[in-house]
C-alpha cells in the first residue's frame, strides 16, 4: 500500500484486527508494507498496542468483601446438589 493519507485511513481502520492476527495474509502484508514506510502509522500502532497491553493488566481498584458464611453455605448447597444429580 503506497503512502498517502487515504491509505493511512485504510490502515487505521484495520489496526486492531492486525494486532489480533485476524486479517487474511494479503491484508496483513499490505499493512506491513505500509507501516514500514509510514512513521505516523507505525507510531500510532505502537500506542494502540500499548493500550491493549495496559488493558490486559487492568485490575479493579478494589476487591470484593469477604464471602459471608450465609453466602458460602448457599453456594456450597447448590454445588452439592449438582454433584448428587450428576452422580445419580
Amino acid at each position, binding site marked *: 500500500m503506497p503512502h498517502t*493519507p487515504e491509505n*493511512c*485511513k485504510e490502515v*487505521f*481502520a484495520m*489496526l*486492531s*484486527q492486525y494486532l*489480533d492476527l*485476524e486479517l487474511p495474509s494479503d491484508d496483513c502484508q499490505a499493512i506491513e508494507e505500509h507501516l514500514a514506510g509510514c*512513521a*505516523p502509522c507505525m*507510531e*500510532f500502532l*505502537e*500506542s*494502540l498496542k*500499548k*493500550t*491493549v*497491553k*495496559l*488493558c*490486559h*493488566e*487492568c*485490575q*479493579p*481498584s*478494589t*476487591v*470484593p*468483601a469477604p*464471602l459471608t458464611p450465609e*453466602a*458460602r453455605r*448457599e*453456594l*456450597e448447597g*447448590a*454445588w452439592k*446438589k*449438582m*454433584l448428587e*444429580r*450428576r*452422580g445419580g
Partner: protein
Amino acid sequence: MEQQREKELAVALLAGEPGAFDRFVEYFRSKVFGYSWLMCGHREDAEEVAQEALLKAFENFDQIRDPERVRAWIFRVAKNACLMKRRKSVFAPERELSLEEFLPIAEGEGEHRHIEIADWSKVPDKELLNSELGDRLRQAIAELPESYRSVLLLRDVEELSTEETAQVLDLTIDVVKTRLHRARLAVRQKLDAYLRREHATHP
C-alpha cells in the same frame, strides 16, 4: 495460561475434588466481581452479581459438557445479572463511536508528515494497580458507552476470544471486532491526552 487454569478449576469442581469448591469460588468470585464492578460501577451490585453468577453456575453446572466453556458461560450469566441490576447509568450515555473521531491529525508533507501523539515509549505496561495511569485507564474504560465497554472488558481485560465474546454478548463476530477497535481507539485517545498533559507539566 489463565484459560488452562480455569479449565482445571472447572474439572476439579465437577469431579467433586476436596478443596475444589473453595478454589473455584475464590477465583471466579473475584473475576466476576472485577468485571461487574467495571461494568456497572456499583460495589454492592458487583458483589451481588458475583454471588448470583456463581449460584447459577453451580445450579446448572451439570449441563456444561465442555469445561473449556465455563468462563464464557459464567461471564454470560454475569452480564445478564448486570443488565438486571442496572440502575441509572453512572457512566457515559449510549452512543455510536465513529472511526473519524479517533483518526490522528497529520501535519506536514512527505518526509515531514507527523501526527500529534504522546511519547508512549516510556509508558510502563506493568504494575498499574496503584498508579495514576491505572486510574486513568479505569476511568477511560468507565467512560465508554456501554455496548463498547462490554466488548472491551471481555476481550482485552478478561482476554476472552472474539468468538467467546460474541457468544457472551449475543453479537456477531464482525460487530465484536468493530466495537472492540473503536473502544480501544477511544481509550487510547484518552490516555494519549493524559500522557501529553503529564509530559507538558513534568517534561
